[in-house]
């Protein structure tokens, strides 16, 4: 009897040490991984990354955790959030993990008791400034930072003529040349609109409307229009703009508006009713790993781990010019902002 137990213990110990020797799982990670393997997969609703980047993160995840498939479902933040609401109402939640650029959405879910409390082991290793942006109660973590800036097409706009601040967007010289996203689709645009409303009041948007901006759904499309030359200037997510410039050679350049860069905090949470909670927690851990931070830096996104060098062109998180909108404020104003936006722009 003892012999058998010892043998079993030996075998399992050997198994663990063998795998850890290869990939260095921590005990907590190992336990999550084992539980995740029996769940088989994780479904990740994500608006924080574009499809290509989300796909890569998912394949990195499955490489590190063989036997746990990762299904990314990419959409804009509002669309993903709406889908989760719909699934919750149907009692058929498909999403396990939700990453969005609008932390008011997870605040909303938390208030409704729909998030799982989990403080990832990796959180302690994250850059302190980013760690603080997460939920103090442990319902979500900050998983990315990328300020909203102004983008212009360098072939069409000489540097000296480029806009300097947000109010330049409604300068008549940019009539029919501005692109923005829609706060009812894009989370980042929602945060931006809230910040701009705080700064200048709703008159800003009424003046902007005079300039006949192109209304895209997502901020990605708006800045892509500048890359192709369809529009000369747009609002843009800084890290996406860096990625387009450096990796795709888009003829664009950025301006950090003097009246403040709006900083939506990308957040990730595991849903309380998740069918695969352990795989969800494991993905959340993984998003905070050095491995993902290295990948993020390679695509010009801000790494979450201090071990990884910040890519050139990123802004400092201590920059005084950053505008943060507290999640509660964004939540309180979200409906009003979206309604006003629809009334002003008619769509």
């Amino acid at each position, binding site marked *: 009897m003892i012999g058998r137990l010892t043998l079993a213990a030996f075998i399992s110990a050997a198994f663990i040490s063998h795998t850890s020797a290869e990939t260095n799982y921590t005990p907590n990670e190992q336990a999550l991984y084992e539980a995740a393997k029996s769940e088989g997969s994780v479904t990740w609703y994500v608006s924080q990354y574009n499809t*290509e980047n989300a796909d890569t993160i998912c394949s990195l995840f499955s490489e590190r955790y063989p036997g746990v498939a990762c299904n*990314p479902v990419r959409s804009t933040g509002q669309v993903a959030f709406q889908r989760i609401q719909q699934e919750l109402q149907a009692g*058929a939640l498909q999403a396990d993990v939700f990453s969005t650029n609008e932390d008011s959405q997870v605040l909303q879910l938390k208030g409704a008791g729909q998030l799982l409390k989990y403080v990832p082991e990796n959180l302690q290793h994250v850059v302190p400034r980013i760690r603080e942006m997460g939920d103090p109660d442990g319902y979500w973590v900050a998983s990315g930072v990328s300020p909203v800036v102004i983008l212009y097409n360098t072939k069409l706009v000489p540097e000296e003529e480029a806009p300097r601040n947000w109010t330049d967007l409604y300068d008549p010289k940019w009539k029919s040349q501005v692109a923005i996203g829609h706060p009812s689709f894009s989370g980042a645009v929602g945060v931006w609109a809230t910040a701009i409303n705080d700064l200048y009041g709703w008159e800003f948007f009424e003046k902007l409307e005079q300039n006949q901006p192109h209304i895209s*759904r997502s901020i*990605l499309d708006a800045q892509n229009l500048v890359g192709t030359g369809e529009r000369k200037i747009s609002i843009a997510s800084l890290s996406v703009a860096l990625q387009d410039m450096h990796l795709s050679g888009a003829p664009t350049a950025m301006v950090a508006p003097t009246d403040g860069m709006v900083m939506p905090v990308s957040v990730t949470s595991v849903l309380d009713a998740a069918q695969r909670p352990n795989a969800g927690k494991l993905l959340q851990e993984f998003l905070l790993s050095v491995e993902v931070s290295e990948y993020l830096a390679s695509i010009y996104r801000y790494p979450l781990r201090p071990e990884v060098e910040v890519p050139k062109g990123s802004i400092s998180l201590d920059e005084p010019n950053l505008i943060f909108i507290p999640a509660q404020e964004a939540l309180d104003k979200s409906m009003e902002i979206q309604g006003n936006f629809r009334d002003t722009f008619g769509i």
Partner: protein
Amino acid sequence: MTSASRTTEGSSIAHARWGSSVPWASRLQPQNLLWLLLAAILVVLILAPMSTLVIASFTDAQTGNWTLSNYAEAYGRARHVTALTNTLKMGAAVVALKLLFGVPLAWACTRTDMPGKNLVRYGVFGAFIMPPYLGGVGWILLAGPNTGWINRAWFWLTGATEPLVNVFTFWGLVLVTAIGGFFLVFVFVSSAFEMINSEMEDAANILGAGPVKTALKITFPLVLPAILGSALLSFLGAIALYGVPALIAIPARFPVVVIQLSEFFSFPLRVEVAAAYSVPLLLITVGLLGLQRLILRRKGYTSLTGKGGERRLVKLGRWRWAMFAYCFAVVALAVLLPFVVLLLAAFNRSWTAGFSIDNFTLRNFHYALFEHSSSQHALVASVGIGIAAATLAILLALCIAYIVQRRVLPFGQVLAFLAVSPYVIPGIVLAIGFYAAYALPPLALYGTYTILVLAVATRFLPIAFTTAVAGMRSIHPEMEDAVRILGGGRLSVIRSVVGPLLKRTLAGGWLLIFVLAAQELSTAIFLVGPNTRVVSVVLLDLSEEGRMEVLAALGTLLLLMIVAVVAIGVRYLGRDFMLRRS
């Protein structure tokens, strides 16, 4: 008894074929029970989601009590009413444009000696195979105000700084919506033209009418049912489309119903308000159907009888080439131009960079096929759903059309209304109806292929039904009566008369629905789960990310797969259903 006597009333108006002395009990034959079962399936398939919606529109979301507040909320803002009137305007303009495209082309291809008919037919069919949102993307690449190919050519040629064309306008929206849908007009009107034999026109000629008078007095009145029917479907199709408005109406800032509905479906989810918002659309359909019946009332349109007939072509003389030029222009707008720019984008690193060897790449196809997380799977899913939904819809529609046309059951017109009603429910509303009825436990079909196939089949049931009815209407009951007189039952009638006679029509209808179902976006957008994503949804996501090149590549792959299935279908049919006997 009531029911039996009502049937008798209906029958006596129609053909007085079923005697009034048939007792109730003898009507409960196995065959009739089968019809009842099929009718029940239809009722469940359509009534369950629809009644859920209508009831929801009068229900307070919080208390569950009866209320009108949803209607107040739905129509209480000027912007919401504008979206409805905008949609009606757009629908009307789209119908006009589709008829302008479809009817002359159908006439030219079936009744005249215009050259290049097959070329035009293939072109029209190509326009149909191209999903509306791909046509939309094509036109964005062509007529984007600053970078569209047409405008760049215009700037270069004239030195102008203002764009010549802008797709992000009302007319851009109308054009893009019309080019994808005029095929239905073409098909319905073509088949009606084909069934007219020249004897009636000859009679007019003998009585002294010239070609124009003959056309106006004889030919066009005979195809009026087809024109009205296809106009109705065109209108309903246009107002229910989701992809094109998402691509074009949002930047054009022209709010339409589907965009407004997606607002009600965003947070906080207001399904009841959305339901209330879409009920007037149902009323409009009822009105249009009534109007159609009023126009067609008390007129006979049967032109295909058991007797033979001859059709001769109208000689256009020197107008032959003018007619061809018009047809070619339509085909160019609808398919050639957008498809060429899509192909260019698909094989290009950057679609704005222009034609050069340096820019040529296969990377977009490689990415779409092997790297993108869901597109490979989505291609298979789209084609599979197309096949399943088309088969389901055609089988159901044939049975319902038979019941309705031959008045097998009482209240046949109710079934007819049900069968066409899904088309007016915007795809996303139908999706939510399905969602409410079938996604929840106990059925719990959310995120399954079953719910997608059911919803898509239901969505295109009107086309299947219209196809089947048009076919049924053209078969004079005398051929079926022959079978009945010789002792055959109803199933024998279907098997040996209706089926064979309608084989081509039904197979054509199957292909129509397959193509539409494989491209379907409006229904899918709210019913796909993370593991059941279809190509249309992936394409819309790519458009929202601005990945036009990958989008073009994936769209091309979808087109290839649809064309492959259609080619197999056409081969099975023996002769191209588009290239009719000529």
